[in-house]
């Protein structure tokens, strides 16, 4: 590795980046746009689920139950049905996602100390949403039911029933159970993966396309000098992008930041190096800019989106897919980012994912140097 040759390349690349303000602007604005798009676009919370109610009793108590459905942000009463088919029709047509039927004698049964059953009809086309709605419905009913029980006991004196077991759940790290807090750190990883690979995947392909590579490889410059020299300016840009993403997460999306800034930038530097090198590998293999950019998207965006644990928990994936997730560095970066933002744990638990990212960068870097042939064959 000749330092002079490497620096000559870094300087040349920097000049070329500066001379192309449009591309530079794209690269600087891309994290802002992607963060906004994905930070707002991807939410796993369900609020204002359209609700339809068929209250067959119309008593004070049934209206109280209805109120407890409507009094939170999860349900939005769209229709008060007058008969069963009207409710079914509302769910069938998609106007409402959930239909609740309160039976006749609802208040009488409860008043007499008997359990009453209400029916909920849920549109489960999207089973994830359906599961969420079932959860919300059960929570509403459970809370209402506790109130009814207390009421009953107050009126009739404590019954010698089975002592109820109470779960006092405390949610840690994401106390408000805001899915955004959980998603935004993942979005940072997604954005960095896309930008990192995009930045470098074009630079070598461009030299092949313009014919400048032929002159370049006729000089004594080596593959490692070429890659290191080109890496330096893009690394600087990538770190600025990482800082932008982190700032947007913390100040705009107000995701709690509990870990160390050093850890954030250390992990970002490692991840960035890996994906920048991946970009080089892609562009060394694909000699046109178009092929390189398509291949870059395929190898970074999709794994970072699907296999990083960003939105879809890795634990719930089939074993074979779980193994595949270990190949992509996005998984480790997401782990670290979530920890740095939400948990604020120390460095120790993060050493393993850090090491994994070092290994990824080393393997890809080695493959790039080997894969870059200084010939036109």
């Amino acid at each position, binding site marked *: 590795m*000749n330092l*002079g*040759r490497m*620096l*000559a*390349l870094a*300087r*040349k690349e920097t*000049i*070329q980046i500066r*001379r*192309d303000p449009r591309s530079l602007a794209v690269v600087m604005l891309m994290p802002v746009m992607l963060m906004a798009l994905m930070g707002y676009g991807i939410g796993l919370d369900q609020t204002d689920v359209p609700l339809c109610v068929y209250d067959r009793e119309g008593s004070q108590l049934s209206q109280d139950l209805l109120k407890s459905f409507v009094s939170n942000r999860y349900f939005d009463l769209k229709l008060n049905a007058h008969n069963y088919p009207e409710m079914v029709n509302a769910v069938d047509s998609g106007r409402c996602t959930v239909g609740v039927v309160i039976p006749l004698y609802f208040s009488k049964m409860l008043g007499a100390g008997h359990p009453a059953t209400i029916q909920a009809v849920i549109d489960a086309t999207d089973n994830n949403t359906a599961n969420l709605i079932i959860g919300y419905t059960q929570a509403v009913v459970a809370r209402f039911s506790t109130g009814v029980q207390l009421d009953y006991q107050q009126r009739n004196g404590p019954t010698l029933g089975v002592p109820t077991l109470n779960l006092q759940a405390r949610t840690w790290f994401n106390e408000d159970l805001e899915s955004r807090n959980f998603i935004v750190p993942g979005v940072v990883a997604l954005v960095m993966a896309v930008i990192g690979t995009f930045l470098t995947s074009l630079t070598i392909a461009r030299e092949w396309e*313009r*014919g*400048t*590579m*032929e*002159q*370049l*490889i*006729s*000089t*004594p*410059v*080596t593959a490692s000098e070429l890659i290191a020299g080109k890496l330096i300016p893009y690394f600087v840009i990538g770190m600025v992008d990482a800082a932008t993403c982190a700032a947007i997460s913390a100040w705009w999306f107000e995701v709690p930041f509990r870990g160390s800034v050093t850890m954030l930038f250390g992990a970002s530097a490692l991840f960035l190096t890996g994906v920048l090198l991946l970009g080089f590998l892609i562009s060394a293999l694909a000699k046109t800019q178009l092929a390189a950019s398509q291949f870059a998207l395929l190898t970074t965006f999709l794994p970072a989106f699907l296999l990083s644990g960003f939105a879809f928990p890795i634990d719930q994936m089939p074993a074979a897919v779980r193994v595949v997730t270990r190949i992509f560095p996005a998984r480790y970066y997401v782990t670290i980012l979530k920890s740095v933002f939400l948990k604020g744990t120390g460095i120790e638990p993060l050493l393993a994912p850090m090491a994994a990212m070092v290994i990824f960068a080393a393997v890809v870097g080695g493959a790039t140097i080997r894969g870059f042939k*200084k*010939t*036109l*064959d």
Partner: protein
Amino acid sequence: MAATLTAQPDDDVSVIVENLVKRFGTFTAVDHVTFQAHKGEVFGFLGPNGSGKSTTIRILCGLLRPTSGHARVAGFDVTADPESVRQHIGYMSQKFSLYNDLTVMENLRFYGGLYSVTGARLKERIAWALHMAALEGRDGSLTGTLSGGWKQRLALGCALLHRPPIVFLDEPTSGVDPLSRRQFWELIQQMASEGVTVFVSTHYMDEAEYCNRLALLMRGRVIAMGTPSQLKLGAVPGDLMLLEADSLQRALEVVKPLAQVHDAAVFGNGLHLVVPNPDAASGAIRQAMAATGVGIERLEVIRPSLEDAFVALTARASNPEAEARQ
């Protein structure tokens, strides 16, 4: 011939090429090419497009791997040690390949950095390159804004920053105006006089005349090699005569069937005739022309040009039976 490869090449030989073959799939771009070039020589590759000139140069620069055969440049094997070869050569590709979005000075500095030319030496070489390319005072211009001749000379300057002993120029003057072409060749001659071995490919006949030695390439094969005068004299079997007449077309019809004329072809304003015996041919031609009433304006023996040689040699190469008959 293998013995010359294993033996230490003497100081004078800067490039040795032996049975070089390059195939792309089923297409043979370079077909058993063998030659040597000496220090300070201007060695020309002459041939039509696709004859293997660029491929041969690229192999010698270590940019393409030969399918078989050997090549040594500056004492280093191009297959085994391409990096050492690259230290000792300057290469200028056919297509302009400097960075258009860099200024003249930035391009020079960049290549200076790649060739490890630094400090006072870099300053001196950049000054030399700017002077040579007539770009003094324009060092801050974006390279993309320069016209063809300047770009070409700047590319040469970049390729020569490290004073390589061997230079490969692949069609350096294509798309360059005649004045720039002449200046370019003056530069080449000057380099050669300083002991630099210069390889040039071209399809301009007039440029080929400037070379010390020429290899004539056709379909990947060297069909003739020698100094321009050797080629001219050796290529034409017999003598060459020039015939100018009122009607070239009719004159051609008249002289072509004559037994005393081996070959006839239109060449500029006249016909070039290949004849074994000028005196006998002259009589037969005058007689035949008079009989058909075509007026002769000029009929004389001339020295063959390189173009004549090229035409004769390529005709012979593409028709091996005719060669066998002669």
